[in-house]
């Protein structure tokens, strides 16, 4: 479904990504893990067309990010880190606006917005401005935004960061539920969360891929019981 092929990105002299290659299969929930500054967000930004790669490419189905980024944008729902959303807009207006841009047909629009409000539990805040919402609600608006128009692929950058334990569990439920039909790439710093939701993990550090496997296989190959220890071993080795 998605192939990252020798992807590199430099910001001036800083090499944020160095020859990153991996693949995401259709229907998979992939956890992209790594310490801060590992290059996860840069990877997402190239995939979603916000940045251009310095070299290498990403292929989504048969489309190439360097050539057909517009087609790729249509297939991807993206939640950027900390969900930046227009503060002055009402939740309903915002979702309506995204629905228009995503070309949701006018006959389906209202029911689709309702459906997303149900999934993300936004029913009580639809008529509030985004400015008034708590962090948890704002994050859910961000998830609803990403789900708008039923994209095949979801890219969620730290969807649970800054949430309280209850909200984290709720968000995880949402990801699991929608993950049954969609291909999802997401990142998190909560390793137990990755263990609970991901089919496979890719661990990055300093712009390189350090591991790409299921958590079970990683446990077997390193003879470690705790995923946390594996993570620390992999990312502190360098």
């Amino acid at each position, binding site marked *: 479904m998605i192939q990252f092929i020798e992807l590199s990105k430099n910001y001036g002299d800083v090499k944020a990504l160095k020859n990153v290659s991996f693949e995401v299969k259709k229907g998979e929930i992939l956890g992209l893990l790594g310490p801060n500054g590992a290059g996860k967000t840069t990877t997402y*930004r190239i995939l*979603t*067309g*916000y*940045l*251009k790669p310095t070299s290498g490419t990403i292929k989504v189905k048969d489309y190439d990010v360097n050539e057909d980024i*517009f087609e790729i*944008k*249509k297939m*991807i729902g*993206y939640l*950027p880190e*900390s969900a*930046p*959303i*227009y*503060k*002055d*807009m009402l939740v309903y*207006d915002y979702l309506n*606006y*995204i629905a*228009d*841009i*995503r*070309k949701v047909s006018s006959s389906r629009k209202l029911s689709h917005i309702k459906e997303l409000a149900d999934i993300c539990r936004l029913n009580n805040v639809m008529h509030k401005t985004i400015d008034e919402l708590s962090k948890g609600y704002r994050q859910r608006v961000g998830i609803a*935004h990403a789900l708008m128009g039923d994209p095949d692929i979801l890219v969620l950058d730290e969807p649970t960061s800054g949430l309280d334990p209850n909200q984290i569990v709720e968000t995880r439920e949402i990801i699991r539920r929608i993950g049954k039909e969609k291909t999802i790439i997401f990142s998190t710093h909560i390793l137990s969360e990755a263990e609970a939701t991901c089919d496979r993990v890719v661990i990055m550090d300093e712009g390189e891929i350090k591991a790409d496997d299921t958590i079970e296989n990683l446990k077997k190959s390193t003879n470690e019981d705790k995923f946390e220890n594996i993570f620390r071993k992999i990312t502190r080795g360098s």
Partner: protein
Amino acid sequence: MENIKHIFKKEFKNYFVTPIAYIVISLFLLVIGWLFFSTFFLNSQASMMRFFSLLPITFSFIVPAITMRLFSEELNIGTYEILLTLPVKFRDIILGKFFAAVSFIAIMLLPTLIYAVSISFVGELDWGPVIGGYTGAILLGAAFSAIGIFASSLTKNQVIAFITGMTICFSLTLLTDFLLYFIPNTLIGFFQYFSANFHFQNISKGLIDSRDILYFITVSFIALYAANLVMKEKK
């Protein structure tokens, strides 16, 4: 194409949910109303000429205030990332915002029609220059909006966007007045073709000349195209 409409709708609506719109409109009406009417009765002429002659200088600081947030705010709070990862073309984003700003200017000018109507009661108002003047005002507003949008695309700081936009607009307005002191008279004729004020005054006399219209369209196009290049460069 359809996305231009969606972006336009969002941006235009957004002007009126925040207090900025009302502040800017009030300021504009206050400044232009006072400057216009403080000398209006001295001339004892039923004409809007002076009102229109004040517009380029007033627009030079009002229009950048209208456009300053269009990109700077998005860059500042990070919604720029959302905007650029939605399936929308740069061209549609820029044009949607541009038309929203121009429509806002039209709304802002609407109350000044009262001046024209009241003057027509006092004396014989020639409507030709008035219609020309308003056409020119929209064209001038469009050109300055495009410049303001370009300035806004450069920075996430709205104050810097405002000052940059204002500087360019003032320069275009006062170009010939400045150069008067520095270059020989024979060259003024050439340089005045770059002056927004020169072209606007032609239109506001009621002379609708394709050269003047072309000037404003060209300035708008160049500034919007520059904004497009800035967006591409930011990747």
